[in-house]
C-alpha cells in the first residue's frame, strides 16, 4: 500500500486535484442521470401545482 505521506508534494497535490476532478466527473454523470430520470416529471409537477 502506498503511503501518501511519503510522496513528493507535487504528486500529493496532483492526487488531491485528481480526486476533485474525479468527484466532479462522477457528480456530472450522476446528477445528469438523475435529471434525465426525474427532470421532466418535476417540471410537469411544478406546472400543475
Amino acid at each position: 500500500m502506498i503511503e501518501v505521506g511519503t510522496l513528493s508534494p507535487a504528486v500529493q497535490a496532483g492526487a488531491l486535484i485528481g480526486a476533485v476532478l474525479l468527484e466532479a466527473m462522477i457528480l456530472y454523470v450522476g446528477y445528469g442521470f438523475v435529471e434525465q430520470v426525474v427532470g421532466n416529471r418535476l417540471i410537469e409537477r411544478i406546472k400543475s401545482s
Partner: protein
Amino acid sequence: MDVFGISLAVLVLFVGFGLLIGVLFGFFGMGGSFLVTPALLVMGYPSRVAVGSGLAFVFGTSVIATLKHRDLGQVDYKLGVLMIAGTTAGIEVGKEIVLHLEELGMAGSIISVTYVFLLGGIGLFVTYEALKGDGSSGVDHDAAADADADDDIPEIAKTIQSYHVPPMISLRGGVSVSLWMILGVAFVTGLLSGFLGVGGGFIRMPALFYLIGVPVPIAVGTDLFEIVFSGGIGSFLYAMDGGVDLSIVLPLLAGSALGARVGSAATSIVDEGEIKVYFGLMLLGGSAAVAVREAGIFYGIDVLNTVSLVLILGSALLVSGAVVYSSVTALREESGATTHALD
C-alpha cells in the same frame, strides 16, 4: 458524530452552501469562491486553507459548468488559451504575495480588506446598473439580444479595440483586439485570482465584456473554460503548500454540482433582469460580511463573527432563492398561458 474528519452539522452546512453557490454559478457563470473563501475565513480556517480550498472548489464546479456551456457553443478556445497564459503568471504572483503576507501575519486582514472594496465596488456598480434598468451589466441569457451585440459593446471596449498594437487577434463575435491587451487583462485577473483565492469569474467575465468587448454569452462560456485551468493551477499550487482541505472541498462540490444544474436550467426559464438587482445586493452582502468580521476582530467583539457568517449565507440564500422562485413562477405562468390559449 464526525464524517471525513468534520462534524455532521458542518458537513450538511457545506453541502447546503455548495448547493446555493452552484445555483448562482450555473445561472450567472460566476459567484463561486468569492463567497466560499470569506465564509471559510469567518469559520476560522487559516487564510492559506481558505484560499486554496476555495480555488479547488471553483475548479471542480467550473469543470461541470463548462461541460454544460460547451454544448451551447459558447466557448472561444483561442481567447481562452491566451487568457490562461496571462492568468497563470498572475496567479503565481498573487500566491507569492499571499505567502509573503502570511509570513508577516497580515494575509487575513489584507485579503479581507481587498475583498470588501472589490466586492463592494462591483456590487454597487451592478446594483446601480440594475436599478437604472439599462440592462447593460451582468449576464444576459436572451439569445435574441446577441444580434445587437455590436451596439452593446461598451465604449471603453471600443476604445481598447481602436488601439492597433500588433499582433491583433480576431475573436468570436467579430471582435479584434491586441494580443497585449488580452494578456494584460488576463494577468491582472490572474493576480487577483491567486491573491483572493477566487476563480476570478466575477472579475474576469465583466473584464472580457467591458474591456475586451466579446459578446456576453461567449464571455461567460470562455470565462468558465478559463476558470477550469486557473482554478486547477491555483489549487495545485496551494495544494503543494498544504492549502487544500478535501474535507471542505468534497461536500461543497457535492452540493454545487446539483445547484449548477438547477442554475443552468433556470437560464432558459427566467429573465435575468428580474433578479440582477439581487445579485448586486449579494455582492454588497458579501462585502459587508467581511467588513463586519474585520470590525469584530479589531474591536474584539466575537458576536460580529457570527453576524458576518449569517450575512454571507443569507446573501447566497437570497439570490439563489430568487432564481428558484422566479423559475417556478415562470413555469407556472407558462403553464397557465398554455391552458388559457387552449381554452
